[in-house]
């Protein structure tokens, strides 16, 4: 029985898979490989020429301004991930454990609504709110305060990231918390574990996968975002996404922009794989 017949290709299954494979190949893997190749190209007289030179890589990675932008982008994304995860948790906890089925359904509905409008449009709305003569400053001027500089600051960028991430994080966290076996929480109380302590010792470990996935989404969305740091953060200091735009615009340096992009993709892949590995890690292995 050790010998197995060569499997006949299942054309039916392949036929159904083809659209996805073709799509991903044409619009994801292909461009990615081209971008990788492009990072070795040269630009002469504002024209790109095919070549295989490491000069773009050595030039970008040796520059202080690149690593400054890299560190700043990483910092903003990590900060946004932490703020979002922590701000979302009490709301998710309430929806998952305390709210009625009806309230939870409505809450999920209202959390989906922001996705009806483009993120760009929502960010423009926040410009109006945060501007020097904006809604917030108008309101606090009645109290004799302000005006506060909120637009074109790191604070502005962070507001944009939360607008982007918070609804999604609450949805993901709520679903993972709602799936927890409530009897385990009761068992913890029964064994002498107080309410708040049970959140950390029982609820969080049980919902680990969902909480980490929500955090990974926040990191990915904010690390690669261009809109918030540009329109709310004033692009100073620049993030990597802003740097890509600047580099490709100035002197047609597409190859150097490709270097930045590949560094970003590598970072995102590393973070995502590590986090998902942690989320699904079984104990004792």
């Amino acid at each position: 029985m050790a010998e197995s017949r060569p499997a006949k290709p299942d054309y039916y299954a392949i036929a159904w898979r083809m659209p996805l494979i073709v799509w991903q190949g044409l619009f994801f893997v292909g461009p990615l490989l081209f971008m990788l190749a492009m990072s070795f190209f040269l630009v002469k007289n504002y024209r790109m020429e095919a070549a295989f030179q490491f000069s773009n890589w050595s030039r970008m990675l040796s520059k202080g301004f690149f690593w400054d932008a890299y560190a700043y982008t990483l910092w903003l994304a990590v900060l946004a991930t932490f703020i979002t995860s922590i701000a979302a948790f009490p709301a998710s906890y309430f929806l998952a454990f305390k709210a009625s089925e009806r309230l939870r359904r409505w809450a999920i509905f209202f959390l989906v609504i922001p996705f009806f409008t483009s993120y760009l449009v929502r960010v423009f709305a926040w410009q109006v709110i945060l501007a020097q003569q904006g809604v917030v400053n108008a309101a606090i001027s009645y109290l004799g305060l302000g005006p506060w500089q909120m637009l074109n600051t790191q604070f502005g960028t962070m507001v944009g990231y939360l607008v982007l991430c918070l609804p999604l994080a609450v949805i993901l966290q709520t679903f993972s918390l709602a799936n927890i076996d409530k009897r385990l929480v009761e068992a913890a109380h029964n064994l002498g574990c107080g309410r708040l302590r049970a959140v950390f010792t029982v609820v969080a470990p049980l919902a680990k996968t969902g909480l980490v996935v929500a955090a990974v989404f926040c990191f990915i969305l904010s690390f690669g975002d261009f809109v918030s740091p540009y329109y709310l953060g004033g692009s100073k200091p620049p993030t990597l996404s802003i740097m890509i735009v600047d580099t490709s615009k100035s002197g047609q340096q597409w190859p150097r922009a490709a270097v930045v992009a590949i560094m970003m993709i590598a970072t995102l892949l590393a973070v995502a794989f590590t986090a998902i590995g942690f989320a699904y890690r079984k104990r004792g292995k």
Partner: protein
Amino acid sequence: MAEPLVVFDNVVKRFGAFEAVKRMNFEIREGEFLAFMGPSGCGKTTTLRMLAGLEQPTEGDIRLAGKSLVNVKPHERGTPMVWQSLALFPFLNARENVEFGLKMRGLDKPTRARKALDWLERLGIGEFAERDVNSLSGGQRQRVALARALVTEPKILLLDEPLSALDAHLVIRMQGVLTKLQRELGITFVYVTHSQSEAFAMADRVVIMSRGEIAQIGPARDIYRTPASRFVAEFVGRNNIFAGTVNAAGNVDTAAGAFTLGGKAKPGENVSFVVAADVVSISTAKPAAQNVFAAQLISEEFVGSMVTLFFEAPGGAEVKVQVQERLLEGIPREPGQQLFLSFDPSHAHILKG
């Protein structure tokens, strides 16, 4: 005399308009094995959960060792529970699960580990201490759950249908483990089950519940021999209920015939009485005894040494007879066979209500 360990004082529990527990008054004595039994939805689990503090009584008071529990939070009660689902923490191994309660009490790591291992050892699963709880068998998980509840040395242990997920042969073994533990530790066990065999096999006293009320409370033997009501008699099963009117001679006219109860019933009364299945005698020839009636054998149920025979009595009533298999030698047992059944008047128990 000191107050019993647990007192339920006029306890009522309502969920919205539904009254899960109706004005309950009972006591649990220190060191006893008390089993709650009843059909599903009778309020037995709610009663246990109120004791653990997982539900608050709508009215009334529950006292543990003389102190009211009403304002005591579940995590401050010291009433550990073994759950039907076991509720082991999947992210902890067997030892860490057992240590959980000790950790919450702030014991240091070496003490925790030592106590946990002692208990796992005592329950015969010491070798699995570092194993993932999901990789253990049902019986082993059961023991982890027991160790986790007992490691904090409670005065009282609550068990909510803990054996219902186990195979039949494991249930018998775990019953032995539980009764032995309870005797050795001398602590109070409060056990909720829908299984009569579990309750009767282990408990000192059994509480039969029906629709949020206590139908009867007492030793298993009393409940079986002298059920307090028709509900208890029917719920316990393996007994025969006859109903009829007492005639002028003091005998009860039932569909199956006229029976004497030895003067326990007054003429003119409508009575129901129960005769346990194991006190009915069978014979091929009409015996010279009281309360004899002919009945037709319908079927039999053979469980090892015991056999239960199902008869149809005159008037169509089913009569069950439980007898040791070897005592039936020489008695023809073909379905349809006509046999004579009889019971002694002293074995008839008159039901109230």
